[in-house]
């Protein structure tokens, strides 16, 4: 009985951990950036299931991958920065498989 319980619990734990790991992939990371028209850019991030992206790391890089600035999504899942003077890209880094890249050339008002 005890053995059965242990097995049952470990199966349960395995099942749960599977659930957790698959839950991470069950939603899609989303990030869109907009030119505010005042030389600032605002990026809005989130997930397709509606969960918050607050605290997700944001990086702005030039086209060669050199980091220009770094920050985090605020409590409203927004990240604003001064528009770089060089061609750039914005990376929403929600972890492995959860990164979204926005090309600065495609960021419009």
């Amino acid at each position, binding site marked *: 009985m005890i053995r059965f319980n242990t097995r049952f619990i470990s199966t349960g734990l395995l099942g749960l951990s599977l659930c957790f790991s698959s839950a991470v992939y069950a939603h899609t990371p989303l990030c869109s950036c907009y030119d505010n028209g005042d030389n600032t850019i605002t990026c809005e991030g989130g997930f397709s299931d509606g*969960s918050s992206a607050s605290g997700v790391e944001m990086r702005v890089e030039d086209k060669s991958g050199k980091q220009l600035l770094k920050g985090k999504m605020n409590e409203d899942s927004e990240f604003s920065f001064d528009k770089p003077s060089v061609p750039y890209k914005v990376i929403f880094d929600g972890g492995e498989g959860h990164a979204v890249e926005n090309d600065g050339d495609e960021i419009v008002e």
Partner: protein
Amino acid sequence: MKKKIVLFAGMMLLAMSLPAMAHFQMIYTPEAALNKGGKIPLALVFTHPFEAGHTMDMGKPEQFFVVRSRGENTPKKTDLLPTLKPVIWTSLTNSGAAWETGYTARGGDHTFCLIPDPYWEEGDGFFIKQNTKVIINVGGEPGAWMEPVGLPTEIVPLCKPYDRWTGNVFQGQVLFNGKPVPGAEIEIEYMNHKPLLDKKAFAKEAAAKAPQDSFVLQTIFADVNGVFTFGIPKQGWWGFAALDLDPDYTHKGKKCSRDAVMWIKAVDMK
């Protein structure tokens, strides 16, 4: 007395011979699910959408606003009433006073809400006031689409209203002052003639042909919880109008049908 009966019978015949058409307040924008943000057009037209028939003159709306919600952020309300411009909208049979505006949408849900000026329907001898709601989404990140906005009469979607494939069902709950309306009568019409925003008119071509009048205006009833279910047979915009949710409501001393309208757009699976 006999004369009266004959007259009454004649009127009944006349009434019956008129095609079944329902008044529908439209908030029209071409797409419900947009990939990218940007400026979108909006037209407010009070019409009979299946036939693109008689278009009624709208007065200046009491309220027109949008509630934007994205992820877990607190929804934000923006008044759009000052942005409305009067236009004349042409139907297949007449033209009527309507309104248009533009709106810059970023990511998330945008719930457009209209509380119109009551319309006097001479033929029926009562006013009609259709509080109308349309929910669009930009970028796929959902917001508070499932929450009531708090309109006096309102349809609250139980399915994400902008993610319906053709053939899916749409479920909604009819509310009056925030409470479900058991057995509410709901009329459904298909936006059968494409609104041409540049011409401020309906396209002459119809997308579907009704084999008989019953199909122009479909009728269903909500269950005891005010919940209704509709299977969507064709891509495009579908309007749901829950009728007369406040039977004692009057305007200027006359009966006023206080309705709740909602539009959803279904897309073909390709």
